[in-house]
């Protein structure tokens, strides 16, 4: 009942919806796309879509946040597909790094790539639990799955990250 009351409030108060969830949608998109600027642009598109569509949503037991994440995931996927068709511009780093600093930059880049390569539902589960700090019960509510299923998604995500890092010759981070 409390979930439905909140759903109704968020449906009819765009400003409150925006203020409550903008930051986490930007963070989620930045992790998917590897670019904070691009994330901010696409987050704006997500909320324009929210303005149009959220007032007409029907309560199906999931918070408005679930809808926001689904739209953000779809828009991020579209952006990544479009990117593959664009000419490749070489990676540009802010400054030349050397020694340990270079190793650290390489490791961080590898982690970012590994995170971006996760399947969308694995990425959302990791993001909600570890980045935003939601308890698994809330992760389950947002994802519309059981707590056990969400725990399993995080386990698989962890294994995929390990494999991706090993492929790049990077040991588990300390």
């Amino acid at each position: 009942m409390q979930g439905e009351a909140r759903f109704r409030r968020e449906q009819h108060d765009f400003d409150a919806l925006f203020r409550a969830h903008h930051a986490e949608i930007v963070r989620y998109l930045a992790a998917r796309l590897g670019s904070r600027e691009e994330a901010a642009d696409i987050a704006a598109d997500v909320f324009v879509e929210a303005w149009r569509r959220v007032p007409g949503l029907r309560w199906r037991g999931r918070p408005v946040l679930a809808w926001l994440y689904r739209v953000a995931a779809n828009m991020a996927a579209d952006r990544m597909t479009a990117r593959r068709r664009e000419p490749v511009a070489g990676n540009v780093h802010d400054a030349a790094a050397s020694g340990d600093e270079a190793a650290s930059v390489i490791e961080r880049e590898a982690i970012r790539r590994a995170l971006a390569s996760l399947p969308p539902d694995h990425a959302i589960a990791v993001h909600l639990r570890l980045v935003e700090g939601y308890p698994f019960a809330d992760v389950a509510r947002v994802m519309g799955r059981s707590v056990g299923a969400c725990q399993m998604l995080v386990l698989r995500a962890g294994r995929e990250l390990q494999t991706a890092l090993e492929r790049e010759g990077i040991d588990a981070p300390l």
Partner: protein
Amino acid sequence: MRRCDDRLLARSLADALDGRAQPTGELEALVRVLEAAAAEARFDVSQAETERALATARPGPVRRLRLLLPVAVATGVAVALAAGLLLLSPSGSPTLVNVQARALAALGGPGSVLEVTERIVPGPAGGFTPSTRTGWIDAARGEARFTQRTTDGTVVDETLVERSRITRYAPVTGTAVIAGSCAALATGCASAVDPLTVYRRALERVAATAATPVTFAGAPAYRFSLPVQALRDGVRIAQVVTVDARTLLPERIEWRERRQGGHVQTAAVIDIRDAGAVARDQAPDDAFLLALPPKTVVAQLAAPGRPVRLLGTRRLTPSEARALSPPLYWLGPRAAGHPLGAITLYRYNAGVAVQLRYGPLLVWDYGPVVPPPLLGNRLVPVKQIVIGSRSVRVYSTVGGQLAVERDRPGGTVALIGPIFTKPAYFEAIGHLRPLPDR
């Protein structure tokens, strides 16, 4: 078989991420890689950035009118229904549902903030003095700002709650604690959530159990009870609220604990001296600001969601304990009838803590990391209590024990023991002092 193993492993991983278990082997490696990935994705999006984005994203007036019209119609219908309920009530007095709905509406809508003045009076079992708390609450944004004073006006605590950060400043000691969320504070969200905020949430989410017309301070009022929390040990916590019959604003909130067997105890009484909703843009510019003075000693608590793991323990000799910096706090060579026993250093992944044992009474002295046995679990508001000129927080730990904590320069010191009552704690906490370095 593999699927079953994976389910168990997934649950163990969840326990490790929640800080309930210490991971080893494959789990430890998984936790490390997940935490490293999460750390890459964690960054702050400032409120100013969000407001700028909102100003750009907010659609134009034509679209807004399209939304507002049905909302206005719906609001009109709701008002008419409420009036109907009032008129059709057989007794001629407002129904419970109506009182609850109007009490919620009296706290203001999403565009308003609440300015409050509260007097906090202990329950009959308490042995401490009342205090006054003034501040602002913005329920829509999840923000609050409070100043707590003793009866003589001395400021003992200033608290700022923001969506992604909580700052608690103690002017007496010149110290501040900053945490990413109330979950990172030992007292949990109890020390950061105001009774009025809990009251608003309860009005929104649960049905009141009774509404009785009463006379309060010589004026007509309604009194009803709102269930707030049910704990595993059978304790049920409720707010008994008295609201003014005319304005429907709260005048008194009593926190009551009902234990198994039906024993009811009043934990605290909050008299709302003033509560008024104003439009957010009419609140003072500094209503939700807390500027820490120069030279404030600030302790940053571990991020929420980051599990605190015990890496090891070591017994300290008295000379090692005396050499610690900042100085360790103790109760003297004897306390509660017991001599000082073991002094143990606990090393966690996010910092260290020291435990001093006086028989069954334990003193914990810690900085950035809250030792897991001290984590709080309930929303009881017997939290910020003034003893002398210091603010002391009382709460129940996840293990069900009563704990009392106060700030010290650069950290916190807490008392915990299974057989102690609140007055015994208050007596003991007054004796806390730095361990001399000789």
